[in-house]
């Protein structure tokens, strides 16, 4: 701006280089230095301009000719005032928009105070409520608060559930675990840990490696019984214990057990095994000496008498994923599950050991039937296409990603199938199905559009 004005060579004016002295604000301030230095009197601008006007010197810059000279005042008054806070304390209320233009000199706190002071009371309250809401949401979801909420017995009730994960199957001393076995175990454990952390349950990882305790005894593979017992002791608040084999993967971690099964237990379970009866068990028991409840196909028909929930696959009971409820009844079942007399007579037939023993108990003992219920297999125990595949794909048995099945159990993958491959595929599928909206936007819209435009695939 200063250079748009040419220097006015006025004799005695003292403006040796006016560009330096005309301040950006357009006002010239009298400087004492000049008057002291060369004795010239202080000149005010009006006088100077006047003198410049009527001086005989030719000048290419005439008075009132320049745009800035003419509009200086108007322009400058509409420009922001950088030290408004200091100079115009009274004008604040009249010009609320000015605050947003405040210069860097005003501290943040002061500016905020200014905003607040200018705000109406109602607005303040509304803002406060909004802030409070955001704060509580952040507090709830970004702190352990949500965890404790879901865990506490009278809010979320997560403490009532314990997951037992059978790790290290057949490993340990008997057999070296390869990289794949380690990877399977790592993925499976991580999956359960995440699920448990999300919903406030407890996770108990048990070591199924063949122990010395069982190695010379018949009871091998009845370790389940001992582990369930010790977990009931270890977690005194647990009501339900969920047994999971190692080769399982929770595909939908957003399903809580409460929502998925237990809040509506009577709707989900079936107690009349005739609904799906691959073993052709005669049901109900018809012996005359039994009471009506024992002879009824559904026990007492009340969901709170269900103490054991399992699912059936194509060949009968499946104990890869089942629930037991803490009750005197379960103590009795765990107690009689293994019996030397039964084992001695049946061990040649019992290929699946404890699973067959349970089938035997279910078949012969009315008190077991009364408290056992079944879930449709795909609610807790979907199979990949490789398992139970003799009769092709069965909608009752096999995983379908369209239905977003809860859990997949790669049962029997250690016999001739690729456990790690299946685990990997299901893990990736689970991540894919549970992408967050931002990932969906990136991958389903942006990446696709990019592919169509450029013909190149991108990973965002």
């Amino acid at each position, binding site marked *: 701006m200063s250079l748009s004005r040419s220097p006015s060579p006025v004799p005695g004016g003292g403006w040796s280089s006016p560009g330096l002295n005309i301040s950006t604000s357009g006002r010239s301030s009298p400087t004492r230095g000049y008057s002291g230095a060369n004795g010239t009197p202080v000149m005010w601008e009006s006088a100077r301009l006047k003198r410049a006007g009527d001086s005989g010197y030719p000048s290419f810059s005439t008075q009132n000719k320049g745009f800035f000279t003419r509009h200086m005042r108007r322009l400058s008054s509409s420009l922001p005032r950088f030290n408004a806070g200091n100079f115009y304390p009274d004008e604040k209320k009249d010009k609320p928009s000015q605050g947003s233009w405040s210069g860097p000199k005003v501290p943040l706190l002061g500016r905020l105070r200014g905003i607040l002071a200018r705000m109406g009371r109602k607005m303040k309250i509304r803002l406060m409520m909004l802030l409070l809401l955001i704060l509580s949401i952040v507090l709830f979801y970004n702190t352990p608060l949500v965890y404790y909420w879901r865990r506490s017995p009278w809010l979320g009730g997560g403490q009532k559930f314990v997951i037992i994960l059978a790790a290290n199957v057949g490993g340990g001393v008997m057999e070296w675990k390869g990289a794949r076995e380690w990877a399977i175990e790592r993925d499976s454990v991580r999956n359960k840990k995440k699920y448990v952390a999300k919903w406030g349950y407890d996770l108990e990882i048990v070591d199924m490696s063949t122990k010395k305790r069982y190695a010379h005894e018949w009871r091998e593979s009845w370790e389940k019984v001992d582990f369930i017992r010790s977990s009931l002791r270890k977690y005194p608040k647990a009501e339900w214990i969920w047994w999971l084999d190692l080769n399982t993967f929770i595909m939908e971690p957003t399903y809580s057990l409460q929502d998925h099964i237990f*809040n509506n237990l009577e709707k989900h379970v079936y107690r009349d095994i005739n609904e799906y009866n691959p073993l052709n068990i005669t049901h109900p028991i018809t012996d005359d000496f*039994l009471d009506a409840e024992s002879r009824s196909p559904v026990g007492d028909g009340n*969901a709170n008498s269900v103490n054991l929930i399992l699912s059936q696959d194509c060949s009968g009971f499946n104990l890869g994923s089942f629930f037991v409820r803490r009750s005197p009844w379960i103590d009795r079942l765990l107690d009689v599950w293994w019996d030397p007399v*039964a084992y001695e*007579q049946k061990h040649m037939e019992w290929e699946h050991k404890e699973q067959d023993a349970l089938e035997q108990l279910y078949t012969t003992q009315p008190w077991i039937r009364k408290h056992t219920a079944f879930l449709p297999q795909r609610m807790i125990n979907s199979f990949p296409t490789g398992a139970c595949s003799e009769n092709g794909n069965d909608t009752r048995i096999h995983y379908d990603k369209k239905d977003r099945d809860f859990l997949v159990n790669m049962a029997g993958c250690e016999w001739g199938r690729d456990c790690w491959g299946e685990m990997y595929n299901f893990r990736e599928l689970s991540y894919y199905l549970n992408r967050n909206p931002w990932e969906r936007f990136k991958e389903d819209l942006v990446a696709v559009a990019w592919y169509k435009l450029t013909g190149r695939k991108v990973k965002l």
Partner: protein
Amino acid sequence: MHFAYPPRKSSNPPPYLRAAKLPGLRRSRLKVIAAAGFAFLVLIYLLTRPAGHGHYKSYVPTGNPPVVIVTAFDEMKYDKPYLDMIKDNRIQYAEKHGTGKCADLCLGYKTFFGKVGDYDLKGAPSSWTNVVAVRHALTEFPDCKFIWYLDQHAFIMNPELTIEEHVMKASKLEDLMIKDYPVVPPDSIIKTFSHLKGQDIDFVVTQDKDGMSANSYVIRNGDWARFFLETWFDPLYRSYNFQRAETHALEHIVQWHPTVLARLGLVPQRTLNTYSRGDKGVEYQEGDFTVIFNGCSSTKECDAEAQRYVERWRSEFKST
């Protein structure tokens, strides 16, 4: 200037003062009330949410009849007069504790007689009928408090004694119970629990010199009783050829399954299981509850044993 009194208040009400409709319901108070109401609703919601489902409660028997006496008769092997004599003994005892003594609400003892051949034992020895008959009695009398199983070769000798008072009463039972004692004498490593209280006991049984005795025992009605009897009657036990059938099966269950042992009260044989001959166990003495004709295996033998006691129990029953 000083006035004697402060100036009077104007009798004209000031303008613009809004008359409250209800004194307590100002705008600000309304807000407080609304907030309190909301908090209350939240509290109600939290307290009444479906908290899963109620806990399972097993059926509590009303105690009518208090005791059912169960005996299984083998009518194929033994003659009818002999068995009728024993039935008569049971019925008379039950009647003694029926209508005669109580004033208003009479809950008499009941008898339940099983019969060999009534039940399909799948080829197991006929003595297994004893077990299934008890289970059947539970079905027939779901409200009974106790079931007393007494072998067919036995008389009830003392009509004064009752099951509730002299056997199952918690304080009495605590006196009677033999604690920390091998369940199968002499050297089983499984011993009866020593911490049990009288009310924990659902199953009262005795031992004789051979081991556990299933001639006479008492079971408290409930879920546990059904579990225990059905387990005892398991087809795999029946098919196992235990030497003494259900008696050895009982010994097996008691030793291998702690949920059974934890409900078991071992009492002296004299309490409800005295024998007519002392070679196998405690011999009957005057005043004992029962006498069991042990070691007899035909109508003739058993009847001879029974005749020694018939007169005695009949006179005892008449005198009381």
